[in-house]
């Protein structure tokens, strides 16, 4: 047994203080296996040691909340009639930077496992992605294209095979993600209230089963790996790459749901980061019990694996199941039916210990609760950043060139190249195809229609973290509203740089405050999420990216609303103010190469009034389309509404009135939605909105084969063909190169 040297401790990412803490917990020196166990359990990825105090700021309760954030593998929300949804977002940023295809694929596998561990049947996924620029011939652009293509193919590979449709998401492109792509995946599942499964080792004497794929040397110390900066050396960590097997996980999913439908299971826990280690000590700690396992009984793929390797392996597609004594045969029958490996590896004890034997010989013995819950907690130093400088005087830009340029920016351009590769229709429930404001899915089991969206404008968060985060929540709620849904709850994925850098940590704290304010404003509690720090390459940290996943409920199929214009002659109405200023806009970024200016002001009261009004109009069946105004401002929103129905794009003629053309077209003021309706209903809608005290005006009329916009006395016209090729061909052309 090798002695524990300071170098070894440092190599495990543990500080001398943390090592002292370990010794007090054990009352002795740890052995190497125990050191490994502590290092993964106390990594940021598992312990949230740098962020736990921040996460406490989130509102987590509400009358619909059945399982709160942090309680289990995913939060659970009541959707009525005894039905509930479990959902969560997870990141796989670092693995995807090293091996995009497998990194993204195993990310999908991991989040889907979290959902069916709750006893829920996964029904759909969303993916929120960030990459560096993909246009151009430089080496960096080539790398970004390789990462983008690999990640999308990996998500498709896993999601398509397992039969969970990927029906929405977002993809953004910005220099700050060079060498540091973000891969956040959201999954939602459905279950009955009484089906909620728990990850607790209950019942002293109950047998502990290992089910699923054999353990190999995959992803050794992956959790620790995700808790460090990406450096040249991390490329040497490559053996850490895990390979996903969606086929095995599909079998595991069906077998687990079949088993959970019986009364044989006392507790169930997936093996994600820190695999066997995490699942044993967490189930014990949740159950207030101890768990004893014997590694000799664990199904293995490779020979000669040490206890250290077995405990820390992150092989995919594995679960730990605590079975009611006497019901073992039920487990065996079901897993044999599904041709999956299984083994009784241990037993629940009453001594609160995580005890690991290796063929009877003691390999590790640690107080489970202390290991799981007594990780150190840090309040990192914060250093505020100055407010962004104003853009100042801007050179004049030709409007007719500006709109196609914005539409061709890959962040705004059509993502069809992406979602065409995803099976987004399996499970026969997709009511709004990708391309509309939010994903809309009919959950047949429950006969409920849910909507979901993922949003984050990291450009805003880089300039003013708190306001950026507030807007992320508002935009998500706006996207749901435009689809006819009432927002219910939020899952979030905090993607930031190294927390030891005070400016990074200040950004994180500010974003968390902003998200928390937003969640309170829309009464959407946070039910879970994920933190990914150290998103940092030698070039620096990524723009702060607190990705928001929001879930809503649509009362009636008649309320399902899509974002594209429907028929010639329909009236186009702007709900909200026309707005001004170009601060933090994509117009500034794309046309002037500037990330500058104040982030648009957001008034929650105003925003809520707009949502309430739009939803009321939708419910009164007066609205034919609704589209939220976000990146690129009104001009982009209008163009998207003209183009998103691939099969019949349709034009519009618009008058934005007096003012500066560039501001009128491209300002990104908040609390705005563009509706279309039958012309004869326009006056009714305007009257009803006026009664509600919500500003609104008619902008123009749907029809023709061009988009024309009068603004500040200037008229600009674009043929649909021109706009369409700018918007639809941008990403495919880049990826062909």
């Amino acid at each position: 047994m090798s002695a524990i040297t300071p170098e070894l401790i440092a190599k495990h990412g543990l500080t001398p203080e943390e090592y002292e803490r370990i010794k007090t917990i054990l009352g002795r020196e740890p052995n190497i296996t125990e050191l490994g166990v502590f290092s993964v359990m106390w990594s940021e990825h598992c312990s949230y040691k740098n962020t736990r105090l921040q996460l406490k700021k989130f509102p987590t309760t509400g009358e619909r909340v059945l399982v709160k954030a942090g309680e289990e593998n995913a939060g659970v929300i009541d959707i009525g009639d005894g039905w509930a949804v479990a959902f969560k977002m997870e990141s796989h940023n670092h693995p995807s930077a090293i091996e995009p295809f497998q990194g993204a694929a195993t990310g999908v596998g991991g989040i889907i496992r979290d959902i069916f561990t709750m006893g829920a049947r996964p029904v759909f996924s969303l993916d929120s992605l960030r990459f560096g620029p993909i246009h151009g011939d430089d080496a960096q652009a080539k790398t970004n294209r390789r990462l983008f293509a690999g990640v999308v193919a990996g998500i498709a590979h896993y999601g398509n095979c397992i039969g969970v449709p990927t029906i929405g998401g977002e993809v953004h492109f910005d220099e700050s993600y060079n060498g540091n792509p973000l891969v956040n995946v959201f999954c939602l599942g459905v279950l009955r209230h009484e089906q909620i499964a728990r990850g607790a080792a209950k019942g002293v004497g109950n047998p502990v089963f290992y089910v699923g794929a054999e353990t190999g040397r995959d992803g050794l110390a992956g959790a620790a790996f995700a808790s460090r900066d990406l450096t040249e050396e991390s490329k040497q960590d490559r053996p850490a790459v895990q390979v996903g097997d969606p086929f095995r996980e599909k079998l595991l999913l069906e077998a687990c749901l079949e088993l959970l439908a019986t009364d044989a299971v006392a507790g169930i826990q997936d093996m994600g980061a820190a695999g066997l280690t995490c699942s044993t000590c967490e189930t014990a700690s949740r159950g207030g019990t101890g768990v004893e396992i014997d590694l000799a009984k664990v199904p293995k793929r490779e020979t000669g694996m040490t206890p250290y390797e077995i405990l820390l392996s992150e092989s995919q597609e594995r679960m730990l199941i605590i079975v009611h004594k006497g019901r073992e045969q039920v487990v065996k029958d079901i897993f044999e039916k599904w041709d999956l490996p299984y083994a009784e590896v241990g037993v629940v004890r009453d001594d609160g210990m995580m005890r690991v034997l290796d063929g009877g010989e003691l390999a590790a013995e640690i107080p489970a609760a202390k290991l799981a819950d007594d990780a150190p907690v840090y309040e990192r130093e914060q250093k505020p950043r100055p407010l962004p400088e104003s853009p100042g005087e801007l050179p004049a830009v030709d409007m007719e060139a500006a709109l196609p340029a914005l539409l061709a920016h890959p962040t705004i351009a059509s993502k069809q190249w992406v979602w065409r590769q995803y099976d987004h229709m399996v499970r026969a429930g997709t009511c709004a195809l990708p391309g509309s404001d939010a994903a809309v899915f009919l959950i047949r089991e429950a006969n409920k229609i849910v909507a979901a969206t993922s949003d984050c404008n990291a450009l805003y968060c880089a300039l003013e973290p708190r306001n950026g985060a507030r807007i992320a929540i508002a935009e998500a709620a706006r996207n749901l509203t435009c689809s006819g849904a009432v927002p219910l709850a939020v899952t979030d994925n905090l993607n930031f740089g190294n927390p030891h850098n005070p400016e990074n940590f200040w950004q994180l704290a500010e974003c968390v405050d902003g998200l928390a304010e937003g969640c309170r404003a829309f009464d959407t509690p946070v039910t879970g999420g994920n933190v990914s720090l150290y998103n940092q390459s030698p070039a620096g940290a990524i723009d702060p990216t607190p990705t928001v996943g929001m879930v809503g409920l649509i009362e009636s199929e008649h309320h399902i609303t899509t974002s594209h214009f429907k028929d010639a002659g329909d009236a186009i109405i702007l709900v909200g103010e026309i707005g001004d200023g170009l601060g933090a806009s994509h117009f500034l970024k794309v046309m002037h190469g500037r990330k500058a200016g104040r982030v648009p002001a957001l008034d929650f009261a105003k925003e809520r009034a707009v949502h309430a009004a739009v939803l009321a109009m939708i419910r009164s069946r007066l609205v034919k389309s609704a589209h939220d105004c976000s990146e690129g401002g009104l001009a982009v929103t209008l163009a998207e509404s003209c183009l998103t129905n691939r099969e019949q794009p349709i034009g519009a003629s618009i008058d934005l009135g007096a003012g500066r053309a560039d501001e009128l077209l491209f300002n990104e003021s908040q609390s705005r939605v563009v509706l279309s309706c039958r012309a004869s209903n326009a006056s009714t809608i305007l009257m009803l909105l006026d009664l509600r005290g919500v500003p609104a005006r008619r902008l123009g009329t749907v029809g023709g084969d061009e988009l024309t916009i009068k603004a500040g006395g200037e008229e600009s016209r674009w043929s649909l063909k021109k706009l369409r090729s700018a918007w639809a061909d941008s990403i495919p052309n880049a990826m062909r190169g």
Partner: protein
Amino acid sequence: MKAKVIVMPKQSILDPQGVAVRDAVQHHGLPAVKAVRVGKMIEMELDGAFSEDQLHEICRDLLSNPVIEDYQLIVE
């Protein structure tokens, strides 16, 4: 002139396809098959100027994924 490139999953790395094929072969009445690994065989027709180094570069950058695969180049 011909060149062949054999790309196989690294030994330490899981090969789900190999596992599925092994199980199928065993069910098919050949329990003697204990392990299977599935990789790629890439045959190239060459005509004109090139160097082995160039081919190796292609193998590394295009034909294989060094993170999870090993390759073998055979020039005939």
